[in-house]
């Protein structure tokens, strides 16, 4: 039996199934953990970033308040200083242009702590700051501390924050002058911003609503955030956190950003400008622990899967091995080996299955044994039947010969009586003859006639002898035709039928000669009988047709009626009289011809005659 090719064996299927059972929850839990983990992490980190932004904003606010307090103190000192006051009043402007008075400030302890140039000037408003910086308000009635905003010092390339503080005379409600100070924002805020670092990339950044960096440990002060969309998200007047695909630091990656407005500062800034705190950390760093955790889980999962695979392979081998063994045993049985019992001892259902199989094997063997007996018996019966059939056939052939012999005997008598008469006459002559020399001639005639009789008897006995039992011989068809014709001459006393022979060279055929002689005799006899003693020609022709010997016997007899044609080869069918045959002639002809792989065909026309065509395979070329 040919085993089919399996793409995946039983073992492979089991291992796959078990691995699938292990892998599906692993992948599912990893996916859920990743999704939920990153979302919840975002919430926590976002809230933290927001808080940090708020705290940092409050710190910068507080610092600015401290500076303003210092400046207020300085302005008070200037108002209290008579020299400065005189100078200020004495330099009251006469037009719209304000004049600037430069002072060397007395030592003020507080100024030391802040950087930036301190200048005092008499101006109508806070707008005329140093280097042309303009205040946002021009009100002189309610002069208040003004933060005029950021500008770039073209000389130093520093970004400066300009603050204008009104100087009040104690008696006056209007300021007599303004105290102007420019702070280098880096020096002012960097100490507050820079230390707020977490991790390796987490930091806070101070920007204004135009996107300008005021202070950042990573980006240069004065550089800009160009992403307007990002700016719109974070430069709003309340604190919060958001996610964006822009870090604000030049890369377009997923980012969590905390933000908070600087409420104190913004209240002092000119309308339209606001400052904001920005908290950011590289997302890779944020999610690194989560990723690491997930990787850990994944690795552990894969390791578990590997273990699971190995275990399931082992387990499946334990299951599949006996099954394979069972299959092997089953194919052994299928191959016909039923002698050995199935040897599968696993102590489980497989063994039970094997036991069932073995039971089937035993039953199968019993059936086969019985079957073999039956086949043997039947074969014997058939053989016996065939032998019986052969025996009956031989008897039939012989019986048919005997009926023919009856009609032949008188013909033979005639044939033999003629020479016998000659012999008798010659013998009488010898008896009465006195001359010895004349006796010799008579004796020669007697011998000649004796030989003639012997030939007749030989021919006849060849016909009546049962077919020989030994091997087939190479039979000369023409010789057998001549013998059959001679026999017909013996048995049928008719001199009006002319026999014509047209013999072509043909090969011999392998057959028993007696049987072939009988075939020809039967056919020729039928032809002669069909001619019923009328004058006519009986024609015997031989030809070679495709290595077959063709013998055609045509009589000019009465022909066969159409309704009888189909019965000609049936046993005991005859239209002849009781003395002319038993109806076995053509039946035997066909039996014998078929036995030698030949065919016999019959064509007949009523009133014109019948043609019998016999084809027999020739043994070799002539």
């Amino acid at each position, binding site marked *: 039996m040919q085993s089919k090719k399996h793409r995946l064996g039983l073992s492979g299927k089991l291992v796959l199934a078990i691995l699938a059972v292990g892998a599906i929850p692993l992948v599912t839990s990893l996916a859920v953990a990743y999704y939920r983990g990153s979302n919840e992490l975002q919430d926590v980190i976002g809230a933290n970033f927001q808080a940090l932004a708020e705290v940092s904003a409050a710190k910068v606010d507080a610092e600015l308040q401290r500076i303003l307090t210092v400046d207020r103190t300085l302005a008070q000192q200037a108002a209290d200083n008579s020299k400065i006051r005189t100078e200020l009043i004495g330099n009251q402007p006469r037009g719209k242009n304000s004049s600037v008075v430069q002072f060397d400030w007395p030592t003020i302890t507080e100024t030391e702590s802040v950087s930036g140039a301190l200048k005092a000037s008499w101006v109508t408003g806070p707008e005329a700051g140093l280097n042309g910086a303009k205040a946002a308000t021009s009100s002189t009635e309610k002069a208040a501390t003004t933060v005029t905003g950021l500008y770039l010092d073209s000389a130093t390339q520093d970004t400066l924050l300009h603050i204008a503080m009104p100087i009040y005379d104690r008696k006056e409600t209007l300021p007599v002058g303004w105290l102007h100070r420019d702070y280098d924002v880096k020096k002012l805020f960097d100490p507050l911003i820079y230390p707020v670092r977490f991790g390796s990339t987490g930091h806070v950044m101070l920007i204004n609503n135009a996107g300008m960096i005021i202070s950042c440990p990573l980006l240069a002060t004065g550089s800009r955030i160009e992403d307007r969309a990002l700016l719109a998200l974070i430069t709003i007047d309340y604190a919060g956190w958001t996610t964006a695909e822009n870090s604000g630091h030049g890369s377009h990656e997923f980012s969590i950003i905390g933000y908070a407005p600087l409420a104190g500062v913004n209240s002092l800034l000119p309308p339209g400008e606001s400052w904001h705190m920005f908290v950011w950390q590289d997302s890779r760093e944020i999610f690194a622990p989560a990723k690491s955790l997930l990787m850990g889980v994944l690795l552990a999962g894969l390791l578990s899967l590997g273990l699971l695979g190995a275990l399931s392979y082992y387990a499946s081998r334990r299951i599949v091995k006996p099954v394979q063994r069972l299959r092997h045993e089953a194919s052994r049985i299928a191959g016909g080996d039923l002698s050995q019992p199935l040897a599968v001892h696993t102590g489980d259902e497989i063994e039970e299955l094997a036991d069932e199989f073995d039971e089937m094997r035993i039953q199968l063997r019993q059936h086969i044994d019985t079957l073999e007996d039956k086949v043997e018996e039947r074969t014997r019966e058939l053989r016996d039947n065939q032998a019986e059939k052969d025996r009956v056939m031989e008897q039939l052939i012989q019986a048919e010969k005997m009926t023919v012999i009856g009609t032949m005997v*008188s*013909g033979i*008598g*005639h*044939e*033999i*009586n*003629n*020479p*016998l*008469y*000659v*012999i*008798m*006459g*010659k013998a*009488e*002559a010898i008896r009465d003859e006195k001359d010895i020399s004349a006796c010799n001639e008579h004796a020669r*005639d007697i011998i000649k*006639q004796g030989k003639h009789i012997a030939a007749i008897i030989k021919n006849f006995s060849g016909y009546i002898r049962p077919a020989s039992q030994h091997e087939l011989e190479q039979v000369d068809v023409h010789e057998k035709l001549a013998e059959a014709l001679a026999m017909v001459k013996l048995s049928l*006393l008719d*001199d*009006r039928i002319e026999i014509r022979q047209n013999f072509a060279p043909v090969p011999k055929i392998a057959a028993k000669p007696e049987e072939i002689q009988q075939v020809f005799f039967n056919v020729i006899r039928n032809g002669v009988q069909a001619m019923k003693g009328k004058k006519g020609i009986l024609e015997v022709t031989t030809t070679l047709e495709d290595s077959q010997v063709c013998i055609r016997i045509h009589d000019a007899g009465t022909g066969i009626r159409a309704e009888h044609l189909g019965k000609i080869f049936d046993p005991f069918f005859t239209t002849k009289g009781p003395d002319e045959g038993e109806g076995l002639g053509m039946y035997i002809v066909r039996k014998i011809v078929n036995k030698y792989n030949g065919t016999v065909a019959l064509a007949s026309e009523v009133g014109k005659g019948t043609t019998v065509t016999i084809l027999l395979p020739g043994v070799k070329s002539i």
Partner: protein
Amino acid sequence: MSHKILVVDDEEEVRKTIRLQLKDTGLEVVEAEDGKKGIEVLDAENVTLVDAILCDVRMPNINGVEAIAYFRREYPHIPVIVLTGYPDVKLAVEFMKEGVVEYLVKPVEKEKLVETVMKAVDQRTFVGGSGPKM
């Protein structure tokens, strides 16, 4: 003048044997090899010269049955003896009805043949009413 007998038989050896057996009778033997020839011979001969006919049955061309029928019809005064190798009772009876004087079956002994032939020849004389002139 000797008596004359016509022998009709297709086999030369048979005709020679008949001649041999009748040698001592002094009969003159005229041979014919078949029925047709026999009729020709008889028609050609002076019928009065043939005293008896010895005829076979199985012969080519015109066989014995036809020839004898002819002889009996045309020359009823000539006795006919059948000499055949075919012993058939029915045929023998038929020939007897035709007026054949004897139905002999081959092989026939010399004495029997001579006796039958001589008897027939005598019968011819008797039947014909004019015996051979001595």
